[in-house]
């Protein structure tokens, strides 16, 4: 008791100090986060700002932040300059089917690599991973010729079908996640009479939801923003995607920044909605790939 009282004074002081320190820590963390948020928000804010300027204002020197007058007409002007409604529908079709294809096929292949022993498994996995190192540009012409012989040029098929054959990165990501699911669960299911496919469907897939979500979001973003693929494979206006439509505001001599940014802002809506809906998966996906520090 005596000892307690004796210790009380300095401990209280310590506690105060500690509390102050923890407030400081929190403040510092928030300051850093705020700075990060501002940095990330900057291009977005610039897009919105430019999308509401007149053409003359986009040229202003030094550049200004607040549009004056606010040019709301840029939005209808930009969206009717080209058939963006159709481009939006096309992009949605391509992206939705690509995401479904990528998630399903990659999950099946990853399941094979994670749960089955077969000769050459390590080697095949290595081959799979090494395909990640082939630059996309090297594949452009061979793939183009392949799709030409299949008669798929100027259709959505070259942009969708390859996704049904898995993607090396998605497979890798899913395999690593599947490996963390305890084998005991598979065995328990097997005892209950489940076959490999049933285990996959009712044990692995439900448990791997965060990883599947992450793969879906990655695929969504990359397909939605893809420019080179649609540029090369699509040639009719009716088949164009949003990214190709945006390029109409741009040429070697001139970019109509105000219209370009207005159309970009609208094009951004879909990924934005998807991000908010799938935020949980997206963040766990970042953690999974290791780019976000420790896996919380």
């Amino acid at each position, binding site marked *: 008791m005596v000892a307690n009282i004796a210790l009380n004074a300095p401990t209280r002081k310590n506690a105060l100090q500690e509390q102050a320190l923890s407030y400081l820590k929190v403040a510092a963390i928030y300051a850093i986060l705020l700075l990060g948020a501002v940095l990330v928000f900057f291009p977005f804010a610039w897009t919105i700002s430019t999308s509401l300027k007149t*053409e003359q204002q986009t040229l202003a020197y030094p550049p200004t932040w607040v549009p004056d007058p606010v040019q709301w007409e840029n939005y209808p002007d930009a969206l009717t300059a080209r058939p963006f409604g159709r481009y939006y529908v096309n992009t949605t079709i391509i992206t939705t089917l690509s995401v479904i294809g990528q998630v399903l096929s990659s999950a099946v292949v990853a399941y094979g690599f994670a749960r089955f022993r077969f000769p050459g498994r390590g080697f095949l996995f290595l081959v799979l991973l090494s395909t990640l190192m082939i630059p996309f540009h090297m594949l*452009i012409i061979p793939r183009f010729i392949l799709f030409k012989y299949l008669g798929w040029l100027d259709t959505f098929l070259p942009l969708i079908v390859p996704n049904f054959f898995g993607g090396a990165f998605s497979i890798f990501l899913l395999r690593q996640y599947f490996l963390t699911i305890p084998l005991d669960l598979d065995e328990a299911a097997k005892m209950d009479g489940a076959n490999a496919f049933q285990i996959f469907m009712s044990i692995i897939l439900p448990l791997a939801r965060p990883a599947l979500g992450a793969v879906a979001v990655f695929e969504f973003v990359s397909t939605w923003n893809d420019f080179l693929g649609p540029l090369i494979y699509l*040639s009719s206006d009716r088949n164009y995607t949003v990214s190709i439509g945006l390029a109409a505001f741009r040429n*070697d001599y001139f970019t109509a920044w105000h219209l370009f940014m207005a159309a970009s802002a609208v094009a951004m809506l879909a990924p934005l909605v998807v991000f908010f809906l799938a935020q949980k998966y997206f963040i766990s996906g970042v953690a999974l790939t290791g780019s976000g520090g420790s896996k919380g």
Partner: protein
Amino acid sequence: MMTSRKTLLTAILVIFMLTLTLGASAQDVTIKWFMRWDQNRVENVAMPVSEAFTEATGINIEFENIGSGSDYYTKLQTTVAGGTPPDVFYPATHVANAYASKGALLTISEFVERDGIDLSVYDPTILANYQIDGELHCLPIDHAALVVYYNKEIFDAAGVDYPVDGWTWDDFVETATALTLDTDGDGVTDQFGVDTFRNYWPMVVWSNTDRGLFDDIRHPTEFYGMEQGVIDSVQFVADLILEHNVMPSDEQRADISDLFAAGKSAMQVVGHWRMQRYLGSGFDFDMAALPLGESGESVNRADGSCFAISADTEHPEEAWELVKFLAGPGSLGVNMLLDLQVMTPVLSEFKSDPRFLEPELLPGSNKEAFLAGAGNYFSMYDPIHPMYSAFDSLWKQELGEVWIGAASAEEAMQRIDDEVSYILENIEDYE
């Protein structure tokens, strides 16, 4: 009953097959036409020309446009290599040459001869850029002639005389210096004499030396980079930024696409393609011919774009008809382009056309400035040889140091010369 049904079936089949055969006749040929134009030209030239062409010939056109040059060439290269090239496309001079030397372009000399097209109506230097061993491989439409645009209002406000034909680079520096202003006195330049044109440094070289950068534009064996005239020309451009401070540096430009259009520079050295934009910017402007250099000769750019036909086309005759319709003497395509005020034509009949020289949009303007330098045309992409891309990235890297004052023109040209000598010794590797 059975027989009549059979007869009916046969009749239907015959009619169906007849329709198919007729449908596949010449009337149904479709030409793929692939362009890299801006929306203005797509809507006001490509679309009406396509319609008029189909009406006149019965040949259909499938039109595709990609505005950005690099994206355009990516797609073009893929489709050419992939064996499904467009029938008619629009390469720049050096690209046309590269494709032609690889056999990807249809030679049009025979068509030209057969249809009695008089090639003397084209400037010979310009036409020569599209010929290999005397064979013409595409029909040029424009050349990227440069002029000095100047903002009359800025000149008037500063009480500076407008540029006159025959002015020199010294006059240019003097004029630019008088027009470079720090209006609010905060030590930061608010108005520049001229917007940056440093990538056109070869043009200054031509004006000083009256020759290109290599001894032979098609078969280069010698590079003139270490000659004093070339070094001085590069240093002159750098000094506009570093010494005279009349041309903005990268930081000073702050990535503004066109300071002249923004009303923040008194002059701009650029071609016809920017005119539409300046017409929309609301100030009064005119054009002056490029200043004269040491050689005393007026010079200008020869390079531009042409309409080419793919060597793999299934419809060479129809594709040629389209090219003729677009770029041939008296053609509708060139006529419509002239009305738009977007290019300097290569056809002499159009150069003297009042629609070009005295446009309604710019009454009393000096459009003749675009025609200055005839007889001394040079290609900005020099040499017209596959090694150009190596040379292009080389000078961009080395001269980048000169523009920021980290190297003198002489030091940079020495390094470029070393590399280019090596390239020229091994030139067959680039062919």
